[in-house]
């Protein structure tokens, strides 16, 4: 299990985490989401022992991570821009990781073939997506119990994304815990069973994805009268309200059925629930805090 308690991390005067508590259960696939600069990559670097936290506890299987060989032998970290020597080809890349991990050579070769990666060509001459494919092959073959992937889908074509997601699900079935940071929330929704939302130096939400999606809803409705509609007229607290013509859209936390009943009491022309996905949820959560909100900006 991955656990952080009161995690604090700053870069000079910029605070990235100020008391973040995170729990990721074993065998889960966890999506790490947040706006640009929220601290996703920093969190993954702390979890993989690249960086040391300034305060709080960071543990994997109950042991501290930083500079702990026992823990790190179970961890594989794939950064957004992974390092390779200029003369590396896929064979030499494998040799590097073989020096540290009990690499499954057959699985590695399988993915190299699956992605049609040239064996003798230097990795420096690969496209961005091809480089990522080579490192994904390492990630799946290294038998690590914890895999941390930063900007996981970056540069991958749709077919590779599919194979990548299939690979992650296979990892999960073997009991591997995968933490993936990405802005491709629709892709994450396909594979993640939990998520961590980082915003403004802390963890805003953390837990099961299904539960979180059940706790937020989006409704559309309209009233016949022409008077100005304000959020105060609604009998529940809304995260976000927008109005186009007479059609009002609200996003709120809670039970959607209760909210529909309460709106019906106000005699609307119509009221309906709109299905929300992970991306909608993310957008609503961060926009409700004022991020890139043009209305509020004005």
């Amino acid at each position, binding site marked *: 299990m991955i656990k952080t308690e009161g995690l604090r991390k700053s*870069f000079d005067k910029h605070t990235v985490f100020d008391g973040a508590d995170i729990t990721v259960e074993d065998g889960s696939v966890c999506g790490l989401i947040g706006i640009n600069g929220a601290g996703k990559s920093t969190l993954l*670097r702390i979890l*993989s*022992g*690249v*960086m*040391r936290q300034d305060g709080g506890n960071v543990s994997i299987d109950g042991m501290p991570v930083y*500079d702990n*060989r026992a823990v*790190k*032998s*179970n*961890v*594989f*970290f794939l*950064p957004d*821009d*992974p*390092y390779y*020597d200029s003369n590396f080809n896929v064979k030499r890349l494998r*040799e*590097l990781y*073989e*020096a*540290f*991990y009990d690499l499954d050579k057959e699985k590695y070769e399988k993915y190299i073939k699956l992605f049609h990666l040239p064996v003798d060509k230097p990795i420096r001459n690969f496209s961005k997506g091809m480089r990522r494919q080579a490192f994904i092959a390492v990630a799946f073959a290294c038998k690590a119990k914890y895999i941390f992937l930063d900007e996981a889908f970056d540069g991958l074509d749709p077919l590779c994304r599919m194979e990548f997601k299939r690979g992650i699900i296979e990892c999960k079935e073997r009991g591997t815990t995968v933490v993936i940071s990405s802005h491709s929330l629709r892709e994450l929704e396909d594979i993640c069973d939990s998520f961590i939302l980082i915003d403004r130096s802390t963890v805003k939400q953390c837990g099961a994805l299904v539960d979180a999606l059940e706790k937020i809803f989006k409704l559309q409705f309209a009233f016949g009268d022409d008077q100005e509609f304000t959020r105060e007229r609604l009998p529940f607290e809304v995260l976000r309200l927008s109005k186009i013509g007479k059609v009002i859209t609200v996003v709120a936390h809670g039970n959607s059925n209760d909210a529909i009943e309460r709106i019906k009491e106000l005699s609307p022309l119509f009221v309906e629930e709109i299905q929300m996905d992970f991306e909608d949820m993310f957008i609503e959560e961060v926009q409700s805090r004022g991020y890139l909100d043009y209305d509020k900006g004005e």
Partner: protein
Amino acid sequence: MKKYFVYELKKSLFVMCILAVLTAAIYEVSILTSAEDILEWGSRRMPTDSIVAIGGALSVIIPIWKLEYLMKKRSVDLYYSLPLSHTCILAVKFSVGLIVLFSSFTVAYWVGSFTAMATFGALLNNVNFVLMYFAMLIPMAVIYSMTSFIFTRANRFVDGIAFVIMTGMSLGTVVEVISQFMGVYRVTLFFTPFGAMSLISWYFLGNFFKNISSAVDVSFMQWVGMITVALLGIAAAIGLFFSERVAKAENCEQLSESYFGYKTMIPLYTFSLALLGTLNSYLLTVLVAGAAYAVSTLYKRTAKIGWKFGVKVGIAFIVGVGFSFMI
């Protein structure tokens, strides 16, 4: 760790071979082109300068090559996340670098020495090649260790190179300034790692172990210089590993704020060179001021070097020029 050591060694074999062949060729050429001098003067003209230069250059280039992984965010991400402690990774890189250094130097040294022995025979009877070989490994290890420590004080590759260049001559520069004040015999060279190395090769060339009276050739101050440099080498190795334990990955590619680098070296050189330059020509005084500003912009990575640091360098410059009039 053993697996990684073997991997790192295998990975370095190719470079080791290239360096060995290249340096052996350079030494060989330098011996053969000195044939006339050797035939005329014997061991007194044995061209040790080239092997000293080769050993010195290798001792600087190899640690930079091996430790540059600490200067890039991407490689820090890789090496710090791998299942080995940061110190273990450094220890492997450091020791493999030392093996590459000694191996390539050994090939160059003995290829050259055997050629010299075969070509000039009895003329070089008083050269103790074996002792000279072992004696040169020591200053090379010292330079290697000092370069490793100084280079890794920087957060960026370019800064690391600048730190190595600046600190390599810093002790010698200070000694030169003191020498000017005291009006004593110039011993500056022996307070630089390369000078100490050169001195050792020259020392053993003179058949010291066959004729103990050669010992008088090395003055007290030269001994002090060599011992100081050797102690600095040991301290550097200890410092290298100690500092790696507390190193922060996030500092990588940031401004290099170590006191072993720009922060201290720019004011030190500004003071010393303003003093020494003004003694010779006012044109040099102006050049020193320009150079101080140029290096400061390299440090701050902007033309605006900041008033605090600017004042510090300015004071060093004025004091340096002022002191020159006292000599």
